[in-house]
């Protein structure tokens, strides 16, 4: 049986399959369906300094092979996470990664300072790419300078593994990746959602309260895979790939393109046990093709 362990900086994952922020709650939502401990890691919901109510309903629209969301970082804030959520999940036999979101650099810093006290949070994923909040969010992820600034600021206060999550809504994602690598990011994860929109032609109104929202699911997979490939060629730090991954085949494509680990997002909604099937499928693929380790396929695309 092939060795599925991968390493993202100091983070050791028992397999390369994690869950994507905002699609897996905090974990308990999935306990009836899977053994959370079987996952390489879970990335919890976007967490901000203050509680946020998110956007108004409707926040979701189905699209061809995908969906738009406009949740807008609804969460009860970092203090609530620390006091009420963390105690419930800290025992998980997997890596718990907090997705840190914000509108101001100071907010990111404060959240990270608070989280650094938690023993069982070995890494954060810095979300500089949320398309669903008015100020900040994606803005940080669409210019090299802004991405560098927030990465640098967070690096100063966060000694553990720092993953920066990139926005796909840019001309040159590899450049952004390089600028956060230069400021000390230990890894990058991509892609967040593509900015999209849908209209109800009967009411002549947008389907989302916010007009535009984030597109996720299989529809975006080709774009995500291309970006992961471009970024993996451009940086030396590990890349965590995501975007539309719905089965083991998809996951393997991302690994071949250069991702050291992958995250599963929207697919959890359709099959809450999909992550387990994906782990099994990767293992079977490696065995069938006589690879002894998942590293035998990471970045091994021939082109």
């Amino acid at each position, binding site marked *: 049986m092939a060795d599925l362990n991968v390493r993202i900086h100091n983070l050791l994952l028992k397999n390369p399959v994690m869950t994507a922020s905002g699609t897996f*709650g905090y974990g308990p939502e999935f306990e009836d369906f899977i053994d959370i401990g079987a996952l390489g890691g879970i990335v919890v919901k976007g967490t901000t300094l203050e509680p946020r109510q998110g956007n*108004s309903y409707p926040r*979701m629209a189905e699209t*061809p092979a995908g969906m738009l969301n406009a949740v807008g970082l609804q969460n009860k804030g970092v203090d609530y996470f620390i006091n009420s959520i963390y105690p419930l999940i800290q025992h998980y036999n997997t890596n718990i990664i907090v997705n840190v979101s914000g509108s101001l650099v100071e907010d990111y810093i404060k959240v990270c300072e608070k989280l650094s006290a938690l023993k069982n949070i070995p890494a954060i994923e810095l979300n500089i790419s949320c398309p669903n909040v008015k100020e900040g969010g994606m803005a940080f992820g669409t210019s090299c300078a802004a991405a560098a600034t927030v990465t640098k600021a967070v690096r100063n206060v966060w000694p553990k593994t720092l993953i920066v999550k990139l926005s796909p809504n840019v001309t040159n994602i590899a450049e952004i990746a390089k600028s956060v690598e230069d400021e000390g990011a230990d890894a990058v994860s991509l892609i967040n959602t593509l900015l999209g929109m849908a209209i109800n032609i009967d009411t002549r109104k947008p389907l989302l309260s916010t007009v535009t929202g984030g597109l996720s699911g299989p529809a975006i997979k080709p774009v995500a895979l291309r970006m992961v490939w471009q970024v993996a060629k451009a940086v030396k730090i590990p890349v965590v790939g995501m975007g539309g991954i719905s089965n083991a085949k998809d996951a393997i494509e991302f690994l071949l393109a250069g991702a050291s680990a992958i995250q599963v997002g929207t697919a959890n*909604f359709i099959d809450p046990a999909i992550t387990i099937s994906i782990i099994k499928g990767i293992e079977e693929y490696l065995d069938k093709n006589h690879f002894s380790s998942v590293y035998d396929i990471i970045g091994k695309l021939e082109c």
Partner: protein
Amino acid sequence: MKKSITDFTVLSNTRLSSTQFLLELSSDILLNDVLPGQFVNVKVEDSPQTFLRRPFSIHSVDAKRNVLFLLIKEMGIGSTKLASLQKGSNLNLILPLGNSFSFGNVKKAILIGGGCGVAPLLFLAKKLHEKDIHCDILLGGRSSDDIVEVEEYQKYGTTHITTEDGSLGEKGLVTKHSIFNSNKGWDMVYSCGPEPMMKSVAMYAKQNEIECEVSLENTMACGIGSCLCCVTDTIDGNICVCTEGPVFNIKRLKWQI
């Protein structure tokens, strides 16, 4: 009851009206602990334009035969696809989801359903009946075509009907039914149906100081509280209809009533 992703077999698919049909489903998992008001999230197979699952209320459970019923109205691509399911085919459900109607201290209730919103009320009526809680059931629709399974409801309570076109029962909106002319001493109103209807029901309940629970049908992606797409605005802020609902006491909602 633990949630699960379970393959059910279609035992029967019965057309009840021009747009409604009844699916009878069975599987291995025990349905004893399913509660009225809960729902399932259905995977629509072979449907290129149906990416996400589709939520449907549990219409009824036959605990003896361990059989589950869904009452579905053809609204779009997914529900129309389900309408063509053949006996013996497979249907993947995530269940049971959501909270349930509460009936701890209820003595006399009225159940008001409109259109396909009646779906969860049959199961509720059955449970109330089991607990010897007397209930009036008021079914509304646009026309007689919308009113289905009246005999079923009659088993569990006094059943009244209104249609907007007067083709069955009284003519008019449910909230104008003559049953409201005299106070029947209800201590609970349960309602499910189109939002405008539920809002007028809620208004009636509020004015008459009767407890009122409504079942919401917000669009959902996951159904299990992990996406935060299905929120409704409450006095506690935006909360998920799929986990803290679909049943809400109207006091908790921020409806302008």
